[in-house]
């Protein structure tokens, strides 16, 4: 593959990756958010594979392999296994602000992400020029998602989005010694396991995964 083909494919993956993040921000049903997450993870894995092939580095190839197994397969399977009742709930997930407001905020953050990374980019590799702003953008959008969702399961997926964003920027910068990416690719699974178990426990005690409703303290009546 020539360099320009790799660069344009990478841009394409990156843009679709960003678009799936916006989708996750706009969707209202947990199951749909999970589907968008899987699409995002697949795009991330595709991008990692592409960069591994293009750079020819063994470490990145191993990272790509781990990503391909962990992010689009293991994480969703874990979520489905551990949190099936919350996923199957057909009700709409509550958010602190409405969707158009969230999308406008997201647009402002996108501009910010591109603006902030501008000084770093001139002279950089074309792949870095694409991945760093998009990675930062997705990371920040994950933070927004985490802040505005009021339910545990979408919040868990927001954590994964933050992770994906950082990862997307990371794979472009490191080609040799990808030890950090190694760890990052595996750590996601741990995070999901821990948070999902925690959510299950909350759901058992409270009867719901709606953590937005947990802000008020209520004493148990002693009678």
């Amino acid at each position: 593959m020539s360099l320009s083909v790799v660069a344009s494919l990478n841009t394409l993956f990156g843009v679709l990756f960003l678009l799936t993040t916006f989708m996750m921000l706009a969707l209202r049903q947990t199951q749909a958010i999970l589907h968008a997450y899987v699409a995002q993870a697949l795009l991330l894995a595709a991008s990692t594979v592409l960069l591994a092939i293009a750079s020819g580095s063994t470490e990145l190839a191993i990272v790509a392999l781990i990503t391909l197994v962990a992010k689009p397969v293991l994480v969703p399977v874990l979520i489905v296994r551990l949190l099936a009742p919350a996923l199957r709930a057909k009700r709409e997930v509550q958010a602190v602000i409405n969707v158009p407001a969230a999308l406008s905020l997201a647009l402002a953050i996108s501009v910010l992400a591109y603006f902030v990374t501008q000084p770093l980019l001139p002279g950089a590799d074309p792949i870095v020029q694409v991945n760093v702003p998009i990675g930062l953008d997705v990371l920040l959008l994950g933070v927004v998602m985490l802040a505005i969702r009021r339910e545990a399961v979408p919040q868990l997926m927001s954590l994964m989005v933050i992770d994906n964003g950082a990862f997307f920027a990371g794979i472009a910068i490191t080609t040799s010694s990808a030890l950090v990416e190694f760890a990052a690719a595996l750590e996601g699974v741990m995070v999901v396991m821990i948070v999902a178990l925690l959510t299950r426990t909350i759901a058992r005690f409270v009867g719901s995964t709606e953590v937005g409703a947990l802000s008020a303290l209520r004493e148990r009546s002693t009678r």
Partner: protein
Amino acid sequence: MTTHVVVNLLQALFVLLFAPLAKGVLNRLKERFQARRGPPILQPYYDLWKLFHKDEVISDRASWVFRFTPYVVFAAPLLVTLLIPVLTAYPLFMAFMADMVGAGFILALGGFFASAAAIDTGNPYGAMGASRTRMVGFLVEPIFMMIFFTVSFIANSTIPYLVQQRWVESSAAFFAPAHLLVMVAFVMIILAETGKIPVDNPSGDFELAMIDEAKNLEYSGRGAALMHWGGSMKLLVLMCVLLNVLVAPWGLARSTAALEVLLAIPLIAFKVLLFVVVLAVIEASLAKLRLFRIPEFLGAAFVTVFVALIVQVFTA
């Protein structure tokens, strides 16, 4: 010069005569997808024929706006036809009179008159439909603007012929992310502007749920025929902009040779019918959104084109 005039008239004639067929195929396919038989694909022509031969009844409270509107709605898409590539890849004599913003303005003029006429007779459904159409229109407008910005960044122009030449140049330009995103956003806009399913249900009979159709309720006879014909031509013109300018400028005539121009007619018709299949699939597989969910659908379109713009600005 004379050939250009002739070709231009041929383009207008093509839009005029082919538009009801495209609508008929769309209706038929939609019914087929729902496992029903559906009307014959020539039904829109029969309807137009019937309406033109019926008497027209106009409320005696209606002003000139109501009488004048069908002609504006009918003429606006035909005027736009003079500005965009329908059959030819080279600019014709009117091509530089207005750019895509101008074309959008002419179409919006038709929409404005339709809304004004809907309020004119005092029919409550008309006013409701008009206000809803305006709501969708307001939300579509910024998306159109962003598409024009993106397009002018890429092609350094918003004249449809120049944009199309810029994108036909190389396959790398075709697969550029900004291009693909603009395509997606434009399809979403077509759905919203022509009252297709996620936004509006064109085949619904329930006045309270209507958006686009409610504006035509008061028309009968020739007025109704012109409104319907204008509506289907608007859809065809938007499809031509999408297909010939933004997506796939293949099949257009490259020279003024009569044979080549004539050959372009079936090729373009085939291309449009392919897109009609896509439209029918979209319409058959989605449900109509609640009115207050429409801003979210269009918000998604806006985000798509906005991402296209920032990617184009910052990575080019």
